[in-house]
């Protein structure tokens, strides 16, 4: 009998029999069952992560993307300062400041949005795993 099948059978031992077992054996079985549970979950999680993991970008691509975000965002984010600057008479200093501020704002928006999205994805994945464990438990126990 292979290891997995044996460990699955351990879990089926009824409590009455467990109570009559010597403590040393009981502790051994308990430890084995716990280790098996951890192993099972770890296998599931690693498989899940491997399936959902996407190709990692090279640093060149990342640099390029950063440039696009900052340059493009500098334009669109400077619209708000631009509106103010036109109200105050188009001083070139105000427009330059708007452009620099736009670049910074764009970078901040991008990093914060990415961080929030990573957080949302990780949370979803963890909650899914939690629910799966609870569901298996309900069906099994």
């Amino acid at each position: 009998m292979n290891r997995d099948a044996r460990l699955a059978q351990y879990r089926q031992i009824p409590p009455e029999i467990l109570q009559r077992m010597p403590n040393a054996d009981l502790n051994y079985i308990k430890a084995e069952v716990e280790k098996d549970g951890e192993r099972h979950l770890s296998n599931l999680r690693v498989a899940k992560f491997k399936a959902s993991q996407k190709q990692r970008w090279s640093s060149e691509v990342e640099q390029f993307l950063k440039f696009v975000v900052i340059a493009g965002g500098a334009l669109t984010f400077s619209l708000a300062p631009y509106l103010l600057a036109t109200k105050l008479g188009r001083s070139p200093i105000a427009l330059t400041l708007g452009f620099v501020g736009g670049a910074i704002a764009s970078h901040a928006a991008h990093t914060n949005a990415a961080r929030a999205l990573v957080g949302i994805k990780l949370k979803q994945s963890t909650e899914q795993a939690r629910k799966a464990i609870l569901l298996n438990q309900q069906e099994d126990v």
Partner: protein
Amino acid sequence: MTINLKEEYYAAQMKKLNDHEQDHLAEPSKSALLWAVSLSVVEGGAAFALLLEAGLLIAVIGALLPVCLLWALANMHADHAELPEKLDDLMEQYNDSIQS
């Protein structure tokens, strides 16, 4: 004292999950989300205000375009740069108990 090995089995799984992933339940970071959303509103609002003379439809499209682009790029960055790193860390942690 009654022992239920099935309960132990699932309790061990839940404990393992909490050991490595409990932090994720506090995500997403409120401040990051607030910054990202409010900056999106500023970006879209300014474009909307500038384009309002050209008509409502154009203004709405012009306001949504940069915001959508920002979030699409952020999503790609999350998928291809930040998540792989985090998942690698997690897989390393979980691999320890696969081998034992």
